[in-house]
């Protein structure tokens, strides 16, 4: 299963903000169990999509040299349930970007309706300690996540997307 919870970037301003869309399909596995007879998107997966949007925004700000990990979500509010067939817009805005990490504010909308909002705190894994733990491979921005961003640039007419590497 692919752990990609955004479909496409529709706006990307490096170091500032990004918007990605997510089209919800009834074929997605989570609807079967969450909940039987009342399929709504789990709030945790909404946050995951928002965090992927914000995480790529933060990673791109340092040309993906840092390993960006979700550190904490100080606040999150959900205003209504989301059903299959809806199109979510995830908008992430950088509030603060520092060598140690970044704070991002996120909004989830459909059309003009606010679905959820959250603050997400990302940490840059300390380079030296990190290479002892994980090696030099950047496991965060491997293949698929970066491909999404390259695809976004293609939409903006900047460059052709490159297929993600097939080896891990």
């Amino acid at each position: 299963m692919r752990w990609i919870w955004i479909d496409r970037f529709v706006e990307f301003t490096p170091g500032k903000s990004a918007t990605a869309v997510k089209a919800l399909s009834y074929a997605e596995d989570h609807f079967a169990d969450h909940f039987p007879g009342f399929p709504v998107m789990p709030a945790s997966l909404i946050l995951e999509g928002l965090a992927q949007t914000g995480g790529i925004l933060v990673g791109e700000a340092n040309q993906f040299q840092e390993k960006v990990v979700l550190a904490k979500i100080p606040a999150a509010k959900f205003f209504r349930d989301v059903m299959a067939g809806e199109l979510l817009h995830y908008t992430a805005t950088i509030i603060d970007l520092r060598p140690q990490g970044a704070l991002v504010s996120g909004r989830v909308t459909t059309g003009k309706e606010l679905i959820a909002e959250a603050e997400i705190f990302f940490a840059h894994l300390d380079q030296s300690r990190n290479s002892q733990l994980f090696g030099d491979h950047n496991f965060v921005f491997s293949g698929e996540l970066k491909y999404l961003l390259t695809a976004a640039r293609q939409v903006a007419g900047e460059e052709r997307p490159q297929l993600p590497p097939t080896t891990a």
Partner: protein
Amino acid sequence: MSHDEIFEKVKALMVDALSVDEDQVTRQARLQADLGAESIDFLDIVFRLEREFGIKIDRNELFPESIFQGDPEFVKDGKVTEKGLAELKAKMPFADLSAFEANPKFDQISDLFTVDLIVRYVASKLNS
């Protein structure tokens, strides 16, 4: 800005950063032992202090890593050495080390980090 005014702002900021109740945030409350702060929360607190008070906090300024990482020059046999204490004093002139100096156990170093220490740190930054 008086210490009381700073404290009120710090209190609100701790409630947001650590999801604690307002009445838990006393001047004496220790960030880790009493308010449950973890390492990433310290970074969050630093970001919030900068925004709230319009100050710039350099890395290691409020929470000096060299001491916490147990550098053998500073920490020996579970205690902070003379050199370590001198380092603490130099790096953290805003901290009240009098009680800690009497029994400088390394595993109690985090108890130095109280809400009051943050208040005094902010006051020293605003006055400099």
